[in-house]
């Protein structure tokens, strides 16, 4: 059974290679091949899952050693896989949602002449993401980490003819680089500290500190490693302060936004922190940093989500905020890991569903993304409305739906951070976030599907660079909203089922927590206030959020052009000034730094280098004059040389 693990990666990798190298003759069948291989990987995942269920909790982890990658003395890098319950969860999510989105893309990308390449990239992403989650050491994880970064870059910039898409791809790549730096430093630190980077060894060695075994690792080192891992997680999962790329990444095709920038890749940071739980458990300071990052981001993303009129960017803000919840939960330690992953999975369902719904709406609206130009679409796109609506109810935490089960637990765990003020602060932030979530999601819902039609003729795509190119529409026409084809609606329906039932299923008898417990450990949270009170409070803020949104966008008509808005609204529209901040602090600062470095380089370094070169050149010029072409002077130099040689030999004996 272990031998199947490599097949998980091999199938999509094969697809990527064939589709990207196969050339145009695969144009006709390429998308089918890509989808089949994704489905194949999913089937393998399910087989492995069923096999795993048949065994006891502690024996469920499977290992497969493929080959020694870099065997150099004490530096042993293996290509080896480890499939435990945590990895299994991700494998099913990635291949399951991935397969659905492959199917969806067949319809969505139907008119794109580069569809084969698109599926090649998607397969590449699947392969890299699977490597990331089933690697058994940090170095191989890093390979997957970089692989998904590459796939993300390629897919964000898939419509490279649009300058905005090309820029967004570059931005995502660059910002991710900062995080990747953190991961590579963390791996180096691990190697110097533990002499290895295999999960088992590193985490066992870390555990030794708490159990008092030999050679404990100092907390300082663990904190350093933890902070570097957090930096990596911030980059990949778009957490403050490396959050700026996610909004722009919505320039990519919508299926990409759903798969990579909502359901899977952006949650890699949560995986990393959960996987490295033992390190964080030994470094409370790093844990606190994780919680703070999560709390800040969940508010940040939620506020941004409130102000965006672009449906995908509103959802992107929401993604950021929801991942903030997960990071916060992961930072809480054993009381939070399981809930972080649980929210991650349920979020994977409903957020992918929401994005696919948004894609479906755009598909019907001539690729219009401005929600102010939607309105009243529920009659025209009933399936989309229903699935989107279920996703909406799930994300705001409507009782009984997926989001309710997972988010509520995180809020409880946040209140349980400690008995003092911090528990109140983090719990309060999580609670507040739930209210804002209810507000902005209701806003999206109302602006899109309710109210009167505010449809506008499609602007000329040349004038509006942010619009996705019309797949089947023509410039200057009124949109004719229609339901999307089956290949798009079926994945949405499947995901809607997940949005509704997954959370309840997971919470039934605490099945999900028990499933993960052998890997992540679990302790019951003890919040500062009672659990029913928290649930009640959550319901209250939920209702308040929905009500405010209804008053603002349901009761009153929505203006087609956005009003000027308050200072906060204007800031939120500009992503809370993140780019301005980056520009002033990093870009300007970087420019100054480069300029001064260039100055030093030109004067000092070049001076030394050129000076050395010049002096050697001068020496060379003088020495070559010795070579005057006369045999007699050569003979003299030989004679002199011999004399020196003889004298030196004699001298050596003398001294």
């Amino acid at each position, binding site marked *: 059974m272990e031998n199947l693990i490599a097949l998980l990666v091999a199938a999509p990798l094969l697809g990527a290679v064939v589709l990207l190298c196969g050339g145009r003759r695969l144009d006709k069948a390429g998308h089918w091949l890509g989808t089949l291989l994704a489905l194949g990987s999913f089937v393998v995942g399910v087989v492995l899952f069923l096999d795993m269920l048949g065994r006891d909790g502690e024996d469920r982890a499977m290992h497969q050693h493929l080959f020694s990658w870099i065997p150099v003395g004490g530096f042993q890098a293996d290509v080896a896989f480890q499939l435990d319950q945590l990895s299994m969860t991700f494998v099913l999510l990635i291949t399951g949602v991935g397969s659905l989105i492959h199917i969806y893309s067949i319809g969505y990308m139907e008119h794109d002449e580069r569809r084969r390449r698109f599926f090649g990239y998607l397969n590449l992403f699947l392969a890299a993401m699977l490597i990331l989650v089933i690697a058994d050491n940090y170095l191989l994880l890093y390979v997957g980490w970089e692989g998904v970064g590459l796939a993300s870059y390629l897919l964000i910039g898939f419509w490279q003819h649009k300058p905005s898409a090309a820029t967004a791809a570059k931005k995502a790549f660059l910002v991710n680089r900062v995080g990747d730096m953190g991961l590579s430093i963390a791996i180096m630190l691990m190697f110097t500290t533990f002499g290895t980077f295999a999960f088992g060894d590193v985490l066992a060695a870390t555990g030794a500190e708490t159990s008092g075994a030999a050679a404990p690792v100092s907390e300082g080192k663990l904190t350093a490693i933890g902070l570097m891992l957090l930096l990596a997680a911030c980059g990949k999962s778009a957490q403050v302060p490396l959050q700026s790329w996610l909004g722009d990444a919505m320039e990519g095709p919508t299926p990409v936004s759903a798969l990579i920038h909502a359901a899977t890749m952006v949650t890699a940071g949560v995986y990393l922190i959960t996987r490295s739980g033992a390190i964080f458990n030994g470094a409370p300071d790093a844990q606190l940093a994780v919680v703070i990052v999560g709390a800040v981001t969940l508010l940040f993303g939620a506020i941004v989500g409130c102000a965006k009129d672009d449906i995908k960017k509103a959802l992107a803000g929401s993604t950021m905020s929801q991942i903030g919840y997960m990071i916060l939960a992961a930072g809480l330690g054993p009381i939070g890991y399981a809930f972080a992953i649980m929210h991650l999975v349920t979020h994977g369902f409903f957020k992918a569903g929401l994005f696919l719904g948004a894609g479906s709406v755009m598909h019907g609206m001539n690729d219009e993304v401005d929600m102010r130009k939607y309105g009243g679409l529920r009659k025209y796109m009933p399936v989309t409305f229903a699935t989107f609506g279920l996703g909406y109810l799930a994300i705001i935490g409507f009782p009984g739906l997926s989001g309710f089960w997972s988010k509520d637990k995180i809020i409880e765990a946040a209140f349980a951070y400690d008995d003092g003020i911090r528990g109140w602060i983090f719990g309060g932030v999580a609670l507040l976030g739930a209210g804002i979530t209810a507000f902005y999601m209701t806003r999206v819902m109302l602006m899109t599907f309710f109210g009167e039609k505010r449809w506008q003729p499609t602007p000329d795509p040349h004038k509006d660079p942010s619009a996705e190119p019309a797949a089947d529409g023509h410039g200057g026409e009124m949109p004719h909203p229609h339901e999307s084809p089956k290949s798009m609606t079926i994945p949405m329906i499947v995901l809607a089922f997940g949005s509704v039932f997954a959370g309840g299923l997971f919470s039934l008898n605490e099945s999900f927590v028990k499933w993960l417990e052998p890997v992540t450990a679990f302790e019951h949270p003890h919040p500062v206030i009672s659990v029913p009170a928290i649930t009640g409070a959550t319901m209250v803020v939920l209702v308040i959020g929905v009500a405010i949104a209804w008053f603002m966008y349901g009761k009153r008509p929505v203006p087609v052009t956005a009003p000027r808005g308050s200072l906060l609204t204007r800031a939120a529209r500009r992503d809370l000034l993140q780019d301005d901040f980056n520009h002033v602090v990093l870009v300007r600062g970087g420019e100054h730094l480069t300029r001064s470095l260039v100055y030093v380089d030109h004067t000092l370094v070049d001076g030394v280098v050129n000076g050395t070169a010049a002096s050697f050149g001068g*020496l*060379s*010029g003088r*020495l070559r004059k010795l070579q005057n072409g006369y045999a007699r002077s050569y003979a003299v130099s*030989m004679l002199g040389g011999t004399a020196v040689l003889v004298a*030196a*030999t004699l001298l050596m004996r003398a001294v």
Partner: protein
Amino acid sequence: MSATAVHSLWTTNGLWATAAEPVAKIDSPQIEYSLIAPTLIVIGAAILGILIEAFVPRKSRYYVQLFLSVVALVAAFAAVVALAADGRGTTSSGIVAMGALAVDGPALFLQGTILLAGLVAIFTFAERRLDPEAHGNRVDSFAAQAASVPGSDSEKAAVRAGFTTTEVFPLALFAIGGMLVFPSANDLLTLFIALEVFSLPLYLLCALARRKRLMSQEAAVKYFLLGAFSSAFLLFGIALLYGYAGTVSYAGIADVVDGTVQNVNPALAGTMGNDALLLIGAALILMGLLFKVGAVPFHMWTPDVYQGAPTPVTGFMAAATKVAAFGALLRLLYVVLPGLRWDWRPVMWGVAIATMLLGAIVAITQTDIKRLLAYSSIAHAGFILAGVIATTPDGISSVLFYLGAYSFVTIGAFAVVTLVRDAGGEATHLSKWAGLGRRSPLVAAVFAVFLLAFAGIPLTSGFAGKFAVFKAAAEGGAGALVVVGVISSAIAAFFYIRVIVLMFFSEPKPEGPTVAVPSPLTMTAIGVGVAVTLVLGVAPQYFLDLANQAGVFVR
């Protein structure tokens, strides 16, 4: 060999004189022909080559000579391989031909290298497609008639008649024969004779350029004068060592140096064991060998001769001579003078440092590609000396490896030089190489590979070789030497890379040279060079192991 016979007459018979037989008996020399077969094959072919010059019609001489040379070299190489397979390089190495020659690992390894390098060089000698046809005759790089005065009527007549100097083949074979003996010579007189046997043909070959004949002749005369000068020193050193030890045999001298021999030859009682003789003699012999490898301060002939000689000869000289001379130097230092290590090591340190630095520094300002490669070869001699100084088994094997790697790069590089031509023959001025990469990307790329190998960039044989000698030197306690070596390598990298930059990143000149399309002969030479460079660079381990196995001298 007769010298050894005489010597054994003096020493052994001296003992025998006390025995019953009153009349001294001269033993007939005992020669193990099969063990010195490689040398015999080559020398025999060379003599046959002279007869061919005398008796075979002019028209077919070229083909017969080429055929004979190739067959002889291949056969000799096969003989070397057979000897090595027989364990003559490792388990059953020994002294043969009455003490005149040693058949051991280093000797066989170097002989194999010389034979292969010689074979490749013979291909470049035989190239006849590069020079434009003269009066309907295909011609090579060598003068139509060596004896004709440059620019004279007789020269013109010779060119018109389509004469070619096919004597180059037997000359090269003689030189190779001498080189085969040189690293395996086991007494000083054999050493000297081998030196002369390979030097004299080289002097002649240097004088035989078809174009720029005056320059070629000047180079030959300089080489001859300075070579004779250094030979005199070498011979004087041999005399002094004989005076010191009463024998010219390597092992015999080493025994005296170690103090294990006490019986004094009565005729030399006044001088034997006199350390001044030993030191001065050793220094003079070293000087003779250092001249051949082109080490500072005995390097001055190198640029002039490399530039003036016909380019195929330059490549041959630069590769094979260096291999042979370093072989002899290794044997001298490791077999004859290990007891004197503390005396010669510091001196050799100085020589190595001066050689590395001067070669690298002066090369910076060279404007002629052949002179540039000449200075580069000086710098490389310094690098190899660093390995020699290690005085460890690793030192021997690293030097062997370096020599093997270096010789093929060198022949290949000079072969590329023969391809780049303008109206005046080879366009050796560097300015003419500007933009070559745009006009002939393949040739420029190949040359770039060779330059990178010279510079010691990883994945080329140059890196593996340099790494091996520096590692050996560092482990042999010559860390400072390695530092100087690395600095020199950095300096040297400048001018190698500069040529690459010149070829690929400058605008080609309108009146630039053309790249001639060679026959398969030169292509083979260049191809072998590239192949060896890359194979030894990517997977050097097998050859390092081979050199390691071969790295034990017999005494």
